[in-house]
């Protein structure tokens, strides 16, 4: 059963792509979520502050410019350091390195930085709402997800 969820949707500091954000917002809203979309090139402190203030049910980070594994890990460490945000579930996906599907070893580093779920480049975003449901139920912490491979 699905509950009404509040999602904080963001990308990372160096990433200007927004079609991913526009699409994910629509997708999550269609699944009954209320979405705050922080838009492109979100500085770390803007994301941490928004998370602290909004206390969302989950943080969803999307990055496709190839720097997501660097910027994502950095902002995640900041979120896990901050007592006001360290407990918030967080997932990341998109195209996280510049090497395509050959890059999937980035997942381990991102999980180590504190993400609950890291989606590989090949993951189908349509699986996201269900995985957020699982996260809320406490079942997916520490999970390495294939997220519905292609």
């Amino acid at each position: 059963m699905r509950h009404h969820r509040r999602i904080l949707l963001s990308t990372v500091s160096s990433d200007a792509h927004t079609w991913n954000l526009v699409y994910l917002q629509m997708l999550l809203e269609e699944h009954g979520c209320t979405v705050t979309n922080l838009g492109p090139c979100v500085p770390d402190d803007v994301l941490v502050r928004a998370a602290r203030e909004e206390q969302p049910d989950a943080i969803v980070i999307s990055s496709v410019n190839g720097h997501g594994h660097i910027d994502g890990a950095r902002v995640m460490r900041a979120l896990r350091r901050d007592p006001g945000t360290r407990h918030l579930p967080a997932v990341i996906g998109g195209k996280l390195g510049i090497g395509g599907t050959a890059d999937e070893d980035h997942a381990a580093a991102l999980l180590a930085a504190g993400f609950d779920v890291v989606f590989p480049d090949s993951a189908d975003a349509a699986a996201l709402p269900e995985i957020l449901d699982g996260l809320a139920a406490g079942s997916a912490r520490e999970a390495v997800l294939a997220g519905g491979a292609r």
Partner: protein
Amino acid sequence: MKRASRIGLGAYVAAARGTLVVQPRMGMGDPAAMAAAVRAVAALPARTAATITLDSYTRVGDHRGARRALAAGERLNGFPLVAHGPAVTARVADPAGPGVPVQVRHGSARPGRIFATMATAGLCDTEGGPVSYCLPYGRIPLAESVACWAEATEELAAACAAQGLRAHLETFGGCLLGQLSPPSLLVAMSVLEALFFARHGITSVSLSYAQQTDAVQDVEALAALRHLAGELLPAGLDWHVVLYTYMGVYPRTAPGAWRLLGDSAEIAVSGGAERLIVKTVAEAHRIATVGENLAALVHASRTAERAYRHCALPRIGQVDYAQVLDEARALIEAVLGLADDVGRGLLRAFAGGLLDVPFCLHRDNRGLTRGTIDAGGRLVWAKTGRLPLPASARPRIHRMTSTDLLSLLSHVADRQDGRGR
């Protein structure tokens, strides 16, 4: 720094008359790799221009982030020009030799440091624009971007002139978010940004337009772009037109990617564009290798050569381009009517929704417009918001789900990959 001076992009394209100049989008973090890539592009028998594409940290002004990533041995998505500095940059561009231009492609709303560094390195060809490198590229306020671009453009013109060189600026306004902006808006933005460059001391420009969903519609747009450039740009300004191979979601299969690239070369030739910036088979997946870029340049150049002799598409003189011309002209005239200064006109136009980029999340964009693809495959307005368009623009409103959006974004890729219509 003393070195033989290199030909500028404007002069190079003028000399190539009758041959399509082809150019990659290519950048890597390591200077030796970047230099080798520049050398390989310049050495191709095709009429090429070389490119140094900058990484995302440099684009957002995070030069410390770029240095940190370099020190950690990370692979960047482009060349961190400011972090490497002018001496390294000059060495990277050198292998192009004096006869091949080297353009810096960046995506920055505050281009001042990038322009200063490249000019010190003897590089005077670059691109962007106060709107097109702001709205699709981050969260810097439009007013700040316009002010930064005005100042940086004048400084670039002066820094190049001081070395006896001529700065060349290409508009990115013909691309915007890469997809779902109808052609009239792209044409209008390109002309407006070219006017902005001319107003701020640039004497050689190129006007961009990105391939969209329908080849004949693209030839019409190129016709309108030439028409309006000829009419509105100041006399004596050197200009040419550059087509971008499709900038939206790219085909995932190699055959699909080759076909789309080939189509763009034919559109460039039929539409009278002088230069083409290509995409590679890696586009949908990851940053391309040098080899993939070279192969794309060769394919585009050969396809263009054939298209000069024979092409199934109508030529620029054979299409009826009245609708895109009227729409683009209406947009441009509305902006120019708002202020004497084109920069101020652009700001007022966005504030009032007279310019409004579909699906753009930027705070200074009203967000009242939408583009869609009609049953015949043409890119059209779904919502026109407050755009001052002639009645012929006829918006077709429908509700849009995430699945609808994805299928619009994938329309071109699916067609070329052999799925969908």
